[in-house]
């Protein structure tokens, strides 16, 4: 039971209260209040609004209560509500620092490996320049044998001690260098076994080059395959064309079915949402065709470029993002993981009340390895001279890596200082900010609002149901009679 103000010692009552940074928003007729520093969420009603509207500057708690003209609330109700707002961290005492934890540093190291730096498709919206990345001049086409044969031993030597090692094959189209993928996976399996490390394998592919041999290989190593499909034939072939101008849809769908026939491959259907192809349409298509998960992210193009989301299309994307609430609530309530997973990290942060200071682990325990063996914070930074952290031969310069992370942390970026979502976002994707600035913030805030609503939906009744997002079996056990 919480203390009322009158129960407290006089000195405590006399402390001044301030309104902590927070965000108030409406969703489906309900008012939500999110506290920036404590990551607490509460439904806002008329009385809370009145209190917050009055408490715009430092107030003594007693003076604050006296200042509220609330004909429907007696003094005790007012005191209780002020206390609740204090408990949630909306009203804070002068100088009080939030006690919430930062997210931990994790036990998985991820390496995004550019085994190929060319692509057999010519998608005009490609954000890695068809595999040329950001080098001032065209880089080598593919990772040489000497580099990929030495890669895994160097990775384990340079980054020792992790419980899990994740290898994510990236490009260009990585399957243009399947020989490298094969050697790296085999070597990782051998070294991982001797060191007792767990392994995860990922690939981002356009799906055009997959055959029976590759499908069997992915199945053997239990690959998570980010498989690019942009909707039906007309939508897909509008952008995803071979160099001869032919659309890739027919090949891609044939190979998608090939992967689906293998039991140990997890397919993450990946679509680029753009002008004329909405988030809702992308998710519906991927679900109908049997993807295990879906990743439908909006295109990143300068305004005015063909396909760029602008005006009503952009508004629709933000609306669709907020509407993911229903998708998540329905899945969790029915004991299954949602197909979309963009909100999961934020929802779990709200559950554990852990703030983040960086968007991702890039430069800390996630790295991009270029075809020539250079090391960057992630694959999207490859070729940017000011992002280079080292090489496979020489290792990572820890001071450079630390500077990189500091530069893109929410704490260091001026634009983040007044943003209510900064502890959920961590400052945004460094690779995108480096290229496009903070144009993605609106979408990230829409995601944060959706995550808050999903969290709140379960938080009051049964917050443990949210663990469905990670492991539905745990929730089934908790719900089972014993």
């Amino acid at each position, binding site marked *: 039971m919480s203390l009322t103000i009158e129960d407290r010692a006089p000195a405590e009552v006399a402390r001044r209260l301030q309104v902590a940074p927070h965000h108030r928003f409406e969703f489906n007729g309900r008012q939500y209040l999110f506290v920036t520093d404590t990551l607490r969420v509460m439904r806002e009603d008329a009385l809370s609004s009145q209190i917050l509207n009055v408490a715009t500057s430092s107030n003594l708690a007693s003076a604050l209560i006296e200042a509220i003209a609330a004909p429907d609330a007696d003094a005790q109700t007012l005191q209780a509500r002020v206390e609740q707002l204090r408990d949630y961290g909306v009203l804070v005492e002068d100088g009080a620092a939030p006690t919430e934890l930062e997210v931990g540093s994790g*036990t998985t*190291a991820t390496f995004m490996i550019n085994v190929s730096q060319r692509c057999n498709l010519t998608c005009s919206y490609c954000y890695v320049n068809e595999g040329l990345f950001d080098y001032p001049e065209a880089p080598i086409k593919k990772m040489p044998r000497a580099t990929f044969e030495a890669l895994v031993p160097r990775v384990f030597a340079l980054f020792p001690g992790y419980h899990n090692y994740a290898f994510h094959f990236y490009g260009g189209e990585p399957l243009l260098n399947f020989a490298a993928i094969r050697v790296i996976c085999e070597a990782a399996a051998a070294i991982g076994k001797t060191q007792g490390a767990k392994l*995860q394998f990922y690939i981002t592919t356009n799906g055009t080059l997959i055959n029976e041999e590759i499908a069997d290989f992915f199945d053997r190593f239990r690959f*998570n395959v980010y498989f690019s499909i942009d909707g039906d034939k007309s939508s897909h072939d509008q952008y995803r064309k071979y160099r001869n101008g032919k659309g890739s849809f027919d090949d891609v769908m044939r190979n998608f079915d090939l992967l689906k026939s293998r039991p140990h491959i997890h397919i993450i259907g990946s679509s680029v949402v753009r002008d004329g192809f909405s988030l809702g349409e992308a998710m519906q298509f991927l679900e109908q065709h049997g993807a295990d*998960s879906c990743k439908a992210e909006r295109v990143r193009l300068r305004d005015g470029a063909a396909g760029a989301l602008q005006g009503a299309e952009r508004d629709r994307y933000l609306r669709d993002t907020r509407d993911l609430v229903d998708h998540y609530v329905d899945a969790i309530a029915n004991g299954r993981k949602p197909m979309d997973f*963009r909100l999961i990290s934020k929802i779990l942060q709200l559950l*554990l009340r852990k703030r983040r200071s960086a968007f991702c682990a890039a430069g800390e325990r996630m790295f991009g390895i270029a075809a020539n063996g250079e090391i960057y914070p992630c694959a999207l930074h490859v070729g940017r001279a000011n992002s280079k952290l080292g090489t496979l031969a020489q290792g990572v310069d820890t001071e450079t890596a630390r500077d990189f992370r500091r530069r893109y942390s929410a704490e260091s970026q001026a634009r983040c200082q007044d943003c209510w979502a900064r502890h959920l976002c961590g400052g945004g994707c460094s690779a995108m900010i480096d290229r496009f600035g903070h144009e993605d913030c609106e979408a990230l805030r829409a995601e944060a609002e959706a995550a808050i609503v999903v969290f709140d939906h379960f938080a009051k009744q049964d917050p443990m149901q949210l663990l469905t997002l990670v492991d539905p079996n*745990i929730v089934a056990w908790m719900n089972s009679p014993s």
Partner: protein
Amino acid sequence: MANDHKKQVVARALIDPAFRKVLFESPEKVFGGKLSPQDVKGLEQLKKLVPHLGEIVSSVSSDILCTGGGCGASVAA
């Protein structure tokens, strides 16, 4: 073991490392008696879930163009 009790135990285990240690080392103390095979299995799952949960939270804030929410944290798998 009542469902609510299990949920309370899991909720506390997620945020209290000391409690978690006792739970995994001496679950009978926490639950007040011998565990059913289902509960033993449930606790094993919980033991795996706790670090996995931290991994996901510390991986990436959002779906991103490069890899999506997984980023090695195996959200997808």
